[in-house]
């Protein structure tokens, strides 16, 4: 049985020989740590991305079967992106950098993590109309047509690969920062925030359509959002539904027309309050279900929505920093979730610094012993 068959059979409640050992990548600092400890070759610690060659080589060293967050799609972000430039170097050595999304980030030597935002460009209608809207249009250059026409023959046949559906709101958040997005929602120009979302979403829809029309076949489709945190969503569920639901529906309906029935969505934090909008509009697979840091849960969603609600994730990755007993306890817990069907265990986010290489190997080995 291939890993592709294993994964898709589980998500369709069909028989499988065993659970696949699935992961969601690593923090760069962890790979550096492992390289310094001599656990992995140094070259695997740089430019290692979801599903690329280095990631797949590392899978072999650890014993993973595949990385779920492995997708292909059009270039559906801002195009062209803003030219990155250093705006200011401060006395302590930190820099203020204009990034490709038009956000000014603070970068300090020795600190690498999720970007910290200082300021942003998309503040009003003028900035939207002149600087952003032109970068939010569909053009054929966004799609590598040749690659997708050959995709079915050239793709990895063993691992599932998803169609990248982009992001309805997460990318907008990236362009404005959390604070800026909040101010835009309450801007005196009441239509502005909706206009931004609608413009961006239409371009992304056209990108998805163009890829599907090439005949490329995908195992699933996948969004990235990251619009929740510890206490729930970053905006009211009502506003989210009003602004975003139609865009999920349009994109997901298109996927359904092309036979894709597993549509997953990557959102960190506690996602419960946004699930109705996602689920009712065609998103049916929660990922990565961050139970460890944020306490997100899969079981309540399954109870509420039934077998139509699928999941990938939900394994508390912090156990992989502890010891075998902690990993064993976590495996016992997720084994129960997996036995419900329609659920693939996977660490609940990227593995972080301090994660023990041998424990990850042990986890991957033990997961593969589980027969459903």
């Amino acid at each position, binding site marked *: 049985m291939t890993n592709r068959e294993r994964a898709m059979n589980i998500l369709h409640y069909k028989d499988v020989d065993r659970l696949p050992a699935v992961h969601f990548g690593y923090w760069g600092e962890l790979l550096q740590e492992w390289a310094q400890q001599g656990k992995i070759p140094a070259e695997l610690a740089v430019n290692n991305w979801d599903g690329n060659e280095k990631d797949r080589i590392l899978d072999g060293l650890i014993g993973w079967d595949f990385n779920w967050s492995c997708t292909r799609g059009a270039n559906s972000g801002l195009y062209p992106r803003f030219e990155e430039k250093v705006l200011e170097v401060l006395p302590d050595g930190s820099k203020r950098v204009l990034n490709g999304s038009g956000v000014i980030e603070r970068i300090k030597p020795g600190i690498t993590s999720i970007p*910290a935002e200082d300021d942003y460009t998309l503040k009003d209608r003028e900035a939207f109309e002149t600087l952003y809207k032109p970068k939010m249009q569909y053009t054929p250059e966004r799609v590598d047509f040749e690659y997708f026409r050959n995709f079915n023959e050239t793709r990895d046949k063993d691992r599932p690969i998803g169609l990248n559906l982009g992001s309805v709101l997460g990318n907008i958040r990236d362009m404005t920062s959390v604070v800026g*997005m*909040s101010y835009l929602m309450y801007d005196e120009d009441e239509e502005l925030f909706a206009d931004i979302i609608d413009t961006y979403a239409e371009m992304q829809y056209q990108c998805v359509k163009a890829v599907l029309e090439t005949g490329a076949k995908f195992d699933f489709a996948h969004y990235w959002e990251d619009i929740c945190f510890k206490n729930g969503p970053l905006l*009211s569920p009502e506003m989210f539904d009003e602004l975003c639901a139609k865009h999920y529906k349009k994109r997901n309906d298109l996927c359904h027309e092309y036979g894709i029935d597993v549509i997953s969505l990557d959102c960190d934090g506690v996602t419960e309050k946004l699930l109705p909008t996602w689920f009712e509009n065609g998103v049916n697979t929660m990922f990565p279900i961050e139970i460890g*840091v944020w306490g997100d849960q899969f079981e309540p969603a399954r109870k509420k929505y039934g077998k139509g609600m699928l999941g990938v994730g939900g394994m508390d990755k912090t156990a992989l920093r502890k010891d075998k007993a902690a990993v064993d306890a976590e495996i016992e817990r997720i084994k129960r979730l997996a036995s419900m069907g329609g659920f693939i265990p996977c660490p609940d986010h990227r593995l972080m610094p301090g994660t023990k290489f041998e424990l990850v190997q042990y986890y991957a080995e033990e997961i593969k012993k589980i027969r459903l």
Partner: protein
Amino acid sequence: MSIYLEISENLQKGKAKAVKELVQKAVDEGLPAKEILEKSLLAGMDEIGERFKNGTVYVPEVLVAARAMKMGFEILVPLLAESGVKASGKVCIGTVQGDLHDIGKNLVKMMMEGKGLEVVDLGNDVPPKTFIDTAIEQNCQVICCSALLTTTMDVMADVVKCAEEAGIRDKVKIMVGGAPVTEEFCKEIGADVYTSDAASAADAAVELCKR
């Protein structure tokens, strides 16, 4: 509708311009600055804080309300100073060393100011010693530490240790919060109070300052 209620309601809707105009109108009508602050701005932020805790408003509503409060507050600052009105307590707050993320910290700061506390904002990437030195020099009753990252939350333990070493542990309360922080972690490092959201943090700080 009283002008106080009008200011409070506009604040809760995030109407910064209207709040600024109404506060100026209240001042021009001769209403006492302390009363304008308490009955309109702080009352409005209190309402938003409660609704945030109950999960009926979200981060954007808090941010725009706080922005509106700030616009109104700026008009009152000189008047409050003239009339000798003092804050109900003093807190120093910062995101711990190694962490540049300050959205959570800023939310807590806004909520604390909305409760009438004076807040010394140390910014982000704050070394433990800076929290302690500030608390001593500025006579803060509470040190409030924030972290977004699992990799930086351990610095909070250093802040507690640093306070012990400086001999001020019994004089200052230490609050911790942020995405990866939990009640269990708070106890483990010997901090005093953990809260799960910004509004609860402000409530807790007010209580600590009363002691």
